[in-house]
């Protein structure tokens, strides 16, 4: 269980995240919604400790994440996988090595530096890639792939971390509609089949409504809505998004197919 207690982050005098308190039970798929600049990214990055809160605590089980240092911090990051809007792959490395970065915590640094991955580790990476229909591209440089393919590599990297929780920061904001569906389906699948908690920042309300168990709405760094998607009426949405409302509500809702009936997508072990 992930618990945020009065988490605040200030940049200069401005509060990007302001007194956020949340409890996320294990296995939930939470969508964090709100307009650009509402503090969604800052919040997610603090959970992975890419940024440190100015005030407040973040707890996972009984562990205070905000106090972790050194190896304990790296262990937390390994348990808490992160997926980024811009994929954040090493473009000049091949796909397999990018995925291996998700195992690097469990490998001695000297062995990792020489790329001496064991056969088991390679098998794990290839299986994760295959579940996303990407194994045949394992030898390609990551920067030769399309955006949708790169994000699938990033998801494979997150999967081999065998995480307890996945944080996805606008994972589909740079993708076309078809890849948007592939990526969101993958996250849903991971959540439903392996019970991994997913916290996902989304700009599009319709996607958030159709995929998430719960929506957290943020505005100006504060949580202003926290309920099941059905409770998010158009009036609330307009409140949340202001002038951008037309743009985010107007998008055509994607067709949500039942889990398991999706072509070209079967996660290993499911």
């Amino acid at each position, binding site marked *: 269980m992930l618990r945020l207690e009065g988490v605040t982050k200030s940049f200069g005098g401005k509060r990007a995240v302001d007194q956020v308190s949340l409890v996320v039970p294990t296995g939930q798929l939470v969508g964090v919604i709100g307009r650009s600049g509402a503090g969604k990214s800052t919040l997610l990055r603090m959970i992975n400790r890419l940024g440190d809160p100015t005030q407040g605590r973040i707890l996972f089980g009984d562990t205070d994440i905000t106090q972790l240092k050194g190896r304990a911090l790296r262990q937390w990051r390994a348990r808490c996988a992160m997926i980024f809007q811009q994929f954040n792959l090493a473009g000049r490395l091949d796909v397999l090595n990018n995925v291996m970065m998700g195992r690097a915590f469990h490998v001695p640094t000297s062995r990792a*530096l020489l790329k001496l991955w064991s056969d088991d580790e390679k098998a794990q990476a290839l299986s994760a890639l295959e579940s996303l229909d990407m194994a045949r591209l394992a030898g390609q440089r990551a920067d030769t792939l399309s955006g949708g393919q790169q994000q699938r590599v990033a998801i494979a990297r997150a999967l081999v971390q065998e995480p307890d929780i996945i944080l996805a920061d606008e994972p589909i904001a740079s993708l076309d509609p078809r890849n948007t569906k592939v990526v969101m389906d993958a996250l849903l699948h991971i959540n439903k089949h392996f019970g991994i908690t997913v916290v996902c920042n989304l700009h599009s309300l319709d996607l958030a409504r159709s995929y998430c168990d719960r929506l957290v709405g943020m505005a100006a760094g504060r949580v202003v809505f926290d309920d099941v998607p059905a409770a998010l009426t158009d009036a609330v949405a307009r409140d949340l998004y202001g002038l951008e409302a037309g743009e985010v509500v107007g998008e055509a809702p994607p067709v949500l197919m039942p889990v398991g009936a999706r072509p070209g997508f079967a996660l290993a072990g499911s």
Partner: protein
Amino acid sequence: MSSPIALLPDAQLRPLLDAYEASVRSRRWHTLLILACVAVAMVLSSISAEVSIPKLLDNIHRFPSYIIRLFQLENGRPVWTDVAEWFWGLPRWLRLLGETLLMAYVGTVLGVIGAFVLSFLAAANVAPSRWLRWTVRRFCEICRTVPELVFALVFVIAFGLGPVAGVLAVAIHTVGALGKLFAEVVENIDMKPVEGIIAGGSSWPVAMRFGALPQTMSNFVSYALLRFEINVRSTAVMGFVGAGGIGQDLIEAIRKFYYSDVSAILVLIIITVSVIDTLTSHVRHRLIGLQEKH
């Protein structure tokens, strides 16, 4: 055909012309003032540094005569009339030139290794700690501020005459110069891959190796080659203080007035340096080309 420009009547034109002249005049004064300042500063600094113009003028006739003397054999004939006599010491000089190149090479490689490690500690975007970064930056400054010849002199006293002193001097200077340049390369990388790797729990060395290094590699090689060019030139004079290489014979020839030897050794050094320059810049341009293609 009537002109599309209707000339202004003189009464109207006069004030416009005057205003233009006034603005040009002030700019002209500005330029003259700057030139005067530069001239005054030059005169003042030559006086305080005892650079005497009359002394220069009195002795200037000796300069061409020295140069001409360099290109005369002992019997007074021009050097090109007997090339075998001019380059009588060729085997020895070639060996010393080879030693110079090897010194430059070893010094550059050692320096590059040092700079490579230090650059990641000194780059503002990835440095693991602020005080370490500060220390490394100051260390690099010291390494590159002290002239190589001074280091060489110190090492000659410590380790004795010979190439070891020269190699160490070149290596230390290279650490300082390349450490700064490499750190700037690292500061210009895209941080997203590094962040992606850090976010998965990898250690700092792993994040540097896979997130940062692939982006910096071609620039590192290019700067290292450029440094090798520079180091070939500076090892050529290491022998002046007894730190090995061709410089030893050059300074001896200058001091003992072996005129034709001085010119022969200078010609050899110039040829070597231009060959190295051409080769490395060719490789560097190919590297830059490769970089742009990706």
